[in-house]
């Protein structure tokens, strides 16, 4: 389980996360919604240890990410997919996918390579294994990003706006893959602006507003006009995000 307990994060005098608590249990798909600047990326970066906490505690299966030793172990349990892909530009697609399993998990190369090829094939990139990231479209790069994450066999997948740099067609490609992962029971913590998609795949939805987590509800309740939608901030947010015809 990922457990976020009363996390505080400041940049200078600005408090970006203000006592955020959240859990992600195995099998759950938890979506974080919130307007730009509300602290969604910062929360993900706190969980994967890229930011130092100013208060509170984050554990991944009991491993405290503030402790360097435990962070190193926690990082083997979760894998992150980034908004801007963050691939290694000097390596082929295949190498991007196999590097961490080989170097970090110390798994044998032939086995890792075979798995990586199967993963690439499963996202329609079998013929791109030897290409370099710069030779791929954005959607293809993000699919590599997803394979790189899955190659770690992670218990938790962290995804931060993985489609917001993509055009609608490429977004659909990537969301289709994420939908499949969700239906296979992959545990995900998912930051997105794709509200309709989140509604379909999430078990729970949380809403961040100026660094505070103001709502944490099962998906159906979140969209219930008497529950989540009763909250003015959420109503306002969704009215901007969702085409009018699709609103409940």
């Amino acid at each position, binding site marked *: 389980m990922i457990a976020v307990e009363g996390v505080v994060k400041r940049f200078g005098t600005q408090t970006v996360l203000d006592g955020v608590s959240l859990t992600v249990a195995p099998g759950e798909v938890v979506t974080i919604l919130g307007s730009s600047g509300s602290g969604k990326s910062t929360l993900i970066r706190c969980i994967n*240890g*890229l930011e130092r906490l100013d208060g509170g505690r984050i554990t991944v299966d009991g491993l405290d990410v503030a402790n360097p030793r435990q962070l190193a172990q926690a990082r083997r349990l979760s894998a992150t997919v980034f908004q801007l892909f*963050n*691939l290694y530009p*000097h390596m082929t697609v295949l190498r991007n996918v196999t590097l*961490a399993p080989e*170097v*970090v998990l110390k798994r044998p190369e032939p086995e890792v390579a075979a798995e990586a090829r199967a993963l690439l094939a499963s996202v329609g990139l079998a013929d791109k294994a030897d290409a370099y990231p*710069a030779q791929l479209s954005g959607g293809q790069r993000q699919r590599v990003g997803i394979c790189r994450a899955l190659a770690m066999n992670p218990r938790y997948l962290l995804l931060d706006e993985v489609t917001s740099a993509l055009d609608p067609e490429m977004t659909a490609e990537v969301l289709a893959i994420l939908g499949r992962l969700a239906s296979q029971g992959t545990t995900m913590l998912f930051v997105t602006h794709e509200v309709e998609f989140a509604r379909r795949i999430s078990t729970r939805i949380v809403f961040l507003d100026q660094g505070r987590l103001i709502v944490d509800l099962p998906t159906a309740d979140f969209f219930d006009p008497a529950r989540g939608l009763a909250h003015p901030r959420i109503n306002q947010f969704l009215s901007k995000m969702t085409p009018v015809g699709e609103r409940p």
Partner: protein
Amino acid sequence: MRHTGFTVHDGLLLAQGLGVSLGLFAGTFALGLVLGSAAAVVRHFRVPALGAALHAGLELLRNSPVLVQLFLVFFGIPALIHQPLTPVVAAGVTLSANTAAFVYFIAVAGLDAVGRDQVEAARVYGFSRAQLVRHILAPQAAAFALGPLVGLAVNQLQVTSLVSVIGVMDLTKAGDILNLRTLRPFAVWTMVGALYFAAAKGLTLLGHHWERRLRAHAPPLGF
């Protein structure tokens, strides 16, 4: 009676001098490459006191004349430790340190040029610092640095000629000896210059060859 004509031995003398110059260059450049790169990595990871100390020291080396450094090592250190240094040792120490200083600044720039986002990805995927350097930083920084390093190498090869003043029997010293005996400075220094030129040119061609090969095999970087 003086022998003012050129003999076969003069050719050998020059060849030997050239060998010393090239050997000194190769040894000190290799050592400087290792030390300068290591210092750049220390700096890159902001190792608290060590990083700042190395930076200050190497900045001093980069911004003072090599000849002064050479005198400091050859005359200054023996006075401190009450132990003479041979000219070759003094030359080796000075040129290695001086090369390290220039390599350091090139390597720092190379490391800084590697995109922060992929470094973050590697950290999140659990790479240790050593693994990060080996797999992500070093290959890309080396590609950025190769051009400037070839330029530096050509320059450091010429700089080795300074060690003749403390008595190292390098190519310049050989020229000096030859000049004193033959009293034909124009011919002697033309020959010595031509040998330096040939060595430097060879080095440049080798460097360009590597660069071309690297580029031919290099992944298409950029976005």
